[in-house]
């Protein structure tokens, strides 16, 4: 007990016993105590003066919070389709075998558990895994063996070879953002020189659209926030990069953090906000320390804090808030809920965050890349920016390329680049399919490779997963179906139940029990989810499935049963227990196949 108190006290103190910091407190408590035990739960509830059920609400919602012991080492294999294509399941099986464990099982000595987690954003250097929230990349059988030995030796993570944790940028094509070198503070000073209205005018001229996927015009969002009545305004940088196959924000935060933070400050300057949050996904925990260091450096340079660059009327500072394994928190209102210390369930919109966001105040939520773009506009002006890309999609876009290609990594292009061009550049001319925009995006077949990356043609937040010849697109559709079932927040019925039925039918087809009936039902569910889900998650959960069923139909058809319909389980086996109980084995005690 004393040890738990002494572990929790500094954590509670760090967050001022503030109930709205509950998620951060639980994350840190888990890091200290390995899980949210009943004692930790009771202690935190008492200290914050909140009902313990409020804690349960979070531990059950966030995948990376545990209300039962998961071992001292919690190994989670990234389960994106790109990890799978790079043999992650075999690597996981190897490790499970070494410890004699089943997936999700905790070893009897409490040493470790091994399970899977949604895409960890290391697709260009996978297969990847997380050990206690630290990312390990480029897994090989040898690396599995080394990790198993370290775990057996109970070696602290800090003593593990540092190259295990190396995360490379892999920038393959740089354009105006990734290729530019700009001095620290240059963008903020340029914005200050333009003045609040001047900077806003340039944003408007640039026609910059959000890079998180939805493509909303950034200036319109900033204007709505600026003009909305409120006691305070906030700027949130959405770095909950959870879309499977996307990893550009990770590189921007690792190597261009100054640009991101300056972009946030500029958004604060234009909208009148003086507080910003970086919502960082839990999988990127390793970035936290360098990002905090960068913030401290910027404060020293007077690029953050009070009277920034000597402008007495401009103060702005940034706090980092960590996620805990919930894809839905990339949806802006779910993110705000999470930021307020609650389960990340999307709010009903309108009102939109621009008028009613964090703590009910006007709030701008922008993607990491969008904010970097604001710094370009500050420095070069809106007209320069609007001159690049296409008419409705100005500027450049960073693509996260992964899968079956010779050179996975980041590719920055002006909007309007063709799929074929990207494939040629990354060394995948012979691609079988490309999944654009992540699991919630579109799947394109070769006859569509002349289409362009742009909001007016193929929109994307940046994911570009390549599938080579011989790949089975059913496997991808199945992986996505399981992903969405897991990540649905459960708030609305069409998505909660719909994603579960889709996953169940896909697994039934995979087991060889599916018929044309299931394909018809999947098409019907696609329409239902798309038209009646509460938020973008449900609305887009079957987009890739629909594309794959249409464009790669044989992958589905070859798995179908010859029958019109068959149960997904063995009916005769379902009578076995009753047979044993009654000692019967007569004809009526069996169920043959349906004729």
């Amino acid at each position: 007990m004393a040890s738990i108190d002494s572990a929790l006290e500094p954590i509670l103190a760090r967050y001022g016993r503030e109930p709205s910091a509950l998620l951060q407190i639980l994350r840190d408590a888990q890091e200290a105590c390995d899980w949210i035990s009943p004692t930790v739960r009771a202690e935190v509830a008492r200290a914050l003066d909140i009902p313990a059920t409020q804690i349960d609400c979070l531990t059950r919602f966030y995948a990376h919070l545990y209300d039962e012991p998961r071992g001292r080492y919690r190994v989670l294999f990234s389960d994106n389709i790109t990890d799978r294509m790079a043999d992650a399941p075999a690597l996981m099986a190897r490790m499970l075998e070494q410890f004699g464990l089943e997936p999700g099982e905790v070893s009897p000595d409490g040493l470790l558990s091994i399970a899977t987690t949604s895409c960890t954003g290391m697709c260009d250097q996978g297969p990847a895994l997380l050990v206690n929230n630290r990312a390990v990349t480029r897994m090989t059988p040898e690396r599995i063996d080394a990790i198993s030995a370290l775990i057996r030796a109970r070696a602290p993570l800090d003593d593990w070879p540092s190259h295990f944790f190396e995360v490379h940028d892999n920038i393959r094509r740089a354009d105006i953002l990734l290729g530019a070198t700009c001095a620290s503070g240059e963008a903020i000073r340029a914005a200050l020189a333009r003045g609040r209205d001047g900077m806003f005018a340039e944003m408007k001229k640039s026609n910059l659209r959000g890079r998180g996927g939805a493509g909303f015009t950034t200036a319109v969002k900033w204007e709505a926030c600026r003009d909305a009545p409120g006691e305070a305004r906030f700027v949130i940088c959405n770095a909950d990069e959870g879309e499977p196959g996307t990893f550009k924000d990770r590189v921007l935060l690792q190597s261009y953090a100054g640009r991101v933070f300056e972009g946030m400050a500029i958004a604060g300057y234009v909208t009148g906000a003086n507080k910003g949050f970086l919502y960082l996904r839990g999988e990127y925990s390793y970035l936290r320390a360098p990002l905090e260091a960068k913030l401290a450096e910027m404060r020293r340079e007077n690029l953050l804090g009070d009277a920034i660059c000597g402008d007495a009327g401009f103060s702005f500072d940034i706090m980092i808030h960590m996620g805990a394994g919930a894809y839905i928190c990339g949806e802006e209102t779910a993110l705000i809920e999470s930021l307020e210390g609650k389960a990340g369930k999307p709010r009903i919109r309108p009102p939109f965050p621009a008028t009613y966001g964090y703590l009910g105040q006007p709030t701008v939520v922008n993607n990491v890349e969008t904010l970097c773009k604001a710094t370009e506009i500050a420095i070069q002006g809106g007209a320069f920016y609007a001159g690049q890309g296409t008419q409705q999609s100005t500027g450049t876009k960073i693509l996260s390329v992964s899968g079956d290609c010779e050179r996975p990594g980041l590719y920055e292009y002006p909007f309007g680049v063709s799929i074929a061009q990207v494939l040629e550049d990354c060394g995948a001319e012979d691609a079988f399919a490309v999944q654009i925009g992540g699991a919630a995006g579109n799947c394109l077949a070769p006859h569509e490779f002349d289409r362009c990356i742009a909001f007016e043609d193929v929109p994307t937040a940046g994911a570009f997963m390549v599938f080579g010849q011989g790949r089975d697109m059913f496997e991808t559709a199945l992986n996505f179906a399981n992903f969405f079932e897991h990540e649905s927040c459960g708030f609305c019925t069409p998505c909660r139940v719909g994603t579960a039925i889709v996953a169940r039918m896909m697994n039934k087809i995979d087991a060889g029990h599916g018929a044309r009936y299931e394909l018809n039902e999947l098409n019907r569910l696609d329409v239902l989810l798309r038209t009646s889900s509460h938020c973008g998650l449900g609305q887009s959960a079957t987009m890739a499935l629909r594309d794959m069923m249409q464009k790669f139909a044989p992958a589905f058809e070859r798995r179908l049963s010859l029958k019109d319909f068959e149960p997904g389980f063995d009916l005769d086996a379902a009578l076995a227990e009753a047979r044993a109980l009654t000692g019967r084995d007569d004809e009526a005690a069996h169920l043959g196949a349906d004729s």
Partner: protein
Amino acid sequence: MNAPFPPRAKKRLKIATATLGGCFGCHMSLLDMDERFLDLAKLVDFDRSPLTDLKHCGPCDIGLIEGAVCNAENVHVLREFRAQCRTLIAVGACAINGGLPAQRNPLDLSDLMRKVYCDRVDDTAQIPDDPELPLMLDKVYPIHEIVRIDYLIPGCPPSADALWKFLTDLIEGRTPRLDYAHFRFD
């Protein structure tokens, strides 16, 4: 030469109904149509149903199934209906989701049977093994997990209005459509 549109005798549709593991509440709702039941009888003939007491189902246009699949006999009845009915409809909460009977699903079947049949004072207590009795399935299943289902009518039970609307839609050739009031229960 034939007339371009030779008159066709209007075919009378055949309907069959059955209850699997259920309470007959959905059938009671069918009777609750009151005088409209006579109108229905003008439009259709009834094949196997508790109303006719026929034990087997011949070729039918519409089959209505109430109740969940709890035992081997339920499976046989359901298979017969699927084989004979062009359109098969899951009626009510038990048929659609397992409903009340599915409340036994979290329980262990052996524990359950022993509690019911053996935890008694008389010493002849045993789990019945008469071949006449259908064996229990390990779990209670909704009917769509056993056979293909074409439509479902929600409710516990669906109201007589809902059943009337659904059936007349089907009979008259409209895709059945229930208005919100038909499945609003609070």
